[in-house]
């Protein structure tokens, strides 16, 4: 990293901490606003959230059908004026199903990422704060899990326990997502806990958990947020992956992955059943990825351009 690439002079010590706290977020926001692709991604994401959550309700209110309403006499019609995305084999409106699927994807993505971020943050913070042998052991565990072909374990777990419901999905996905966050938070905490303001809090008798929650975690918020925004699309992707294999959300609830799976099986005749859910999935991931990239560049300029 050459000096010319750094934004602003390096700050150190406790006095600078406060100044940095304010300007860091303002700087980041300013950088994010300047990133055109990220802003387009964010606007697009908001639009999709809006459509996915309100669309099905509006359809039900106006036309009186939902994602599950079958009309066997009207099965497998290509896109037309009444059903913009066409209908599936059972005569269900594909647009409504795609929107509802998007709703599930977004919900799963956000919740699973939240679970992963929470578990990862706490685990990493405790590990980093305690340090020494405990830290060593806790990080070894992370390393071992990381080395496992974890997606296989998730598949085994879900298949064996026949637990194809949302809860087990969160557990399965959460298992995958928290490792990186834990590593990053731990690294941050390790360097933070030697700083003056933490030492000061400790010397005044503030307890360990309080120090972690009140002093340490807020100061690692930047990387946590960065990782959270990157985890959301990856969780959506994993959920869809499992649903595609028939291990995710179950019928009649249409998750995007399940819809794509249906579409792939019928694509020889009903191309629209594949093209629309697949496009929806790609657009959703595309938007979220741009937001995630933008947030990372804004909050962590040194990470720019790395994976």
């Amino acid at each position, binding site marked *: *990293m050459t000096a010319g690439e750094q934004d602003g002079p390096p700050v150190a010590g406790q006095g600078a901490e406060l100044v940095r706290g304010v300007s860091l977020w303002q700087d980041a926001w300013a950088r994010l606003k300047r990133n055109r692709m990220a802003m387009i991604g964010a606007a697009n994401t908001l639009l999709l959230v809006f459509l996915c959550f309100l669309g099905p309700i509006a359809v039900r209110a106006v036309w009186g059908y939902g994602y599950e309403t079958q009309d066997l006499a009207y099965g497998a019609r290509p896109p037309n004026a009444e059903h913009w995305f066409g209908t599936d084999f059972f005569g269900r409106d594909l647009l409504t199903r795609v929107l509802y699927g998007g709703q599930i994807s977004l919900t799963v993505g956000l919740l699973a990422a939240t679970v992963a971020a929470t578990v990862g943050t706490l685990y990493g913070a405790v590990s980093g704060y305690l340090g020494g042998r405990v830290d060593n052991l806790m990080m070894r565990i992370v390393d071992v899990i990381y080395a496992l072909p974890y997606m296989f374990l998730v*598949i*085994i777990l879900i298949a064996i326990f026949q637990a194809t419901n949302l809860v087990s999905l969160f557990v399965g996905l959460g298992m995958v997502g928290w490792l990186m966050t834990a590593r990053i938070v731990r690294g941050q905490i390790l360097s933070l806990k030697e700083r003056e303001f933490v030492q000061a809090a400790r010397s005044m008798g503030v307890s360990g958990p309080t120090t972690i929650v009140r002093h340490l975690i807020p100061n690692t918020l930047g990387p946590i947020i960065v990782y959270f925004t990157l985890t959301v699309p990856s969780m959506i992707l994993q959920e869809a992956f499992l649903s595609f294999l028939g291990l995710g959300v179950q019928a009649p609830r249409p998750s995007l992955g399940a819809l794509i799976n249906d579409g792939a099986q019928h694509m020889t005749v009903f191309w629209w059943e594949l093209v629309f859910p697949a496009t929806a999935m*790609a657009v959703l991931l*595309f938007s979220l990825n741009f937001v995630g990239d933008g947030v990372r560049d804004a909050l962590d300029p040194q990470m720019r351009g790395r*994976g």
Partner: protein
Amino acid sequence: MTRFIVGRVLGLIPTLLVIVTLSFFVIRLAPGSPFTTERGVPKEVVEELQAHYGFDRPFQEQLFNYLANLASGNLGLSTKYPQRTVNEIIAAGFPPTLLIGSFALLWALLFGVSAGIIGAMRQNTVFDYGAMSLAMVGISLPTFVLGPLLALVFGLTLYVLPPAGWGAARHVVLPAVTLGTVYAAYVARLTRGGMLEVVRADFVRTARAKGLSEQLIIWRHMLRGGLLPVVTFLGPAIANILVGSVVVEKIFAVPGIGPYFVDAAFNRDYFLVMGIVVVYSAFLLVMNLIVDVLYGFLDPRVRYT
């Protein structure tokens, strides 16, 4: 160096042991049995089957027997396919999986590294934005989205490549591209990032001051340092490519190992699930080891300890 590799290979054994034991516990402690699903099978027959596969023994003994068999390379018998051993199933299924995976990786590296170099050398130009937008599209096209779409377009609309099947070279193209594209995109971004790290390095300026051609500077002086992030990424990438092959083989009807895996888990085909987990894990561990050695080969400052 040799000592390092030998040490690491020996270190693989306990890791593998942990994975095997863990998986064994998870699978065997789950409710259900391979035979309960078959309705109308008399109790005596089930008991006979249990005894045949050794499921009536104490749990520790079963684990011990499994490990003992494993040590001699015997992965046991399949319950779903009684006429075939797990060894046979894996021996038949692993080569196609490996073939598709290798070509996927090759595609990812060829495309990703080239796009990344172009992006970095023409930073903030149309080429850079084009390559990186393309990479973003690639990242947003997971296998289960890209695969069916490619099959639809090239196989069922343009008729240039078979949409499914196995046996000829052209059957490899679509699965490998499907599987590799996401990683091509990641590799492109990592290469670009790595190259940007070195593009302003002092030693690259030195190379310019020597009057070397731009190609030679990229190939000899920049690529090694620039590719280090990509090499680090190779381990997880290979693991994910293996996972992804489950989906790709399903989409393109490739007779690989992937489809067996999900089915086996659903059918409680204990030994088949275990066999696949063991072979995949061992393969991944070895690949990770190779990546580590490769890393040391690229960066002489890494010390083997």
